[in-house]
């Protein structure tokens, strides 16, 4: 689903962290930063959708499942319906197969259980040929 020529803003990969938890956002932004990835934060699905409506684009979106106002499932569906082709990775604490599948079916490219680590992010980026 990602474009093959990589970043939307030159050579640096851009990412959007969508989560309503400040601790998670702080950790995920820090690890993305350390990997040289420019990152932004949205604290719920609606903010993520609004960012895209305003014309922002991201190579990678890390989407939490459980958020107020608009959850990750609704936001992912909305973004795909808008034609957003970014890599969207669901990031959640849910471990029940059905719940994960429900999230995947909304349009995710991948799903990772929290907590995210640098190696998990690198494996995602490798899958989409962003890193060697």
């Amino acid at each position, binding site marked *: 689903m990602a474009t093959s020529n990589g970043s939307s803003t030159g050579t640096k990969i851009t990412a959007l962290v969508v989560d*309503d*938890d*400040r*601790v*998670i956002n*702080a*950790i995920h932004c*820090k*690890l993305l930063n*350390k990997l040289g990835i420019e990152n932004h934060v949205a604290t719920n699905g609606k903010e993520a959708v609004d960012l895209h409506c305003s014309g922002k684009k991201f190579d990678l979106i890390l989407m*939490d*499942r*459980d958020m*107020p106002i608009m959850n990750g499932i609704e936001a992912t569906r909305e973004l795909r319906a808008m034609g957003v082709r970014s890599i969207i990775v669901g990031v*959640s*604490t*849910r471990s029940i197969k059905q719940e994960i599948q429900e999230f995947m079916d909304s349009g995710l490219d991948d799903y990772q259980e*929290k*907590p995210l*680590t640098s190696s998990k992010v690198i494996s995602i980026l490798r899958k989409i040929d962003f890193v060697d």
Partner: protein
Amino acid sequence: MANTPLHQQLSIMKQSFFDEGLLDHEQVSYLETLENEDDPDFIENLFTMFLRDSSRYIDSIEKALEATPVDYSVMERMLYQLKGSSASIGASKINGETNTLRKVFHDGDIESAKASLQKLKEEHANFKEKLVIYVGMLKEAKPSEY
């Protein structure tokens, strides 16, 4: 890192967190790799943020559980929130108690859920008491390093 008495105390205290199962060694070590000169207060700020937010989550869980009828959607969201943030900072015991509460709640046993919540609150209070001291010592240790 300097080897002053304060730093030695910090080391001992950190090890006791691991030995008591309050913090997960691997996760904390990973978080420490994310800290750098540009953001030397990352760990302290993270722990402080967690203590504040987790207190709020637990309060919301308590209110939701005491409500008539029980507010299931708030319970669900707050439990997953607490599960995620506690796992992310390596707060193992809090994560464990949250999972226990989640299981009991999903089984539909509200009275057991209330008892489980009390355990979670005790665990949280114990963790908070110790972590506040640790964060204070971390702050005190910083000027001599930088």
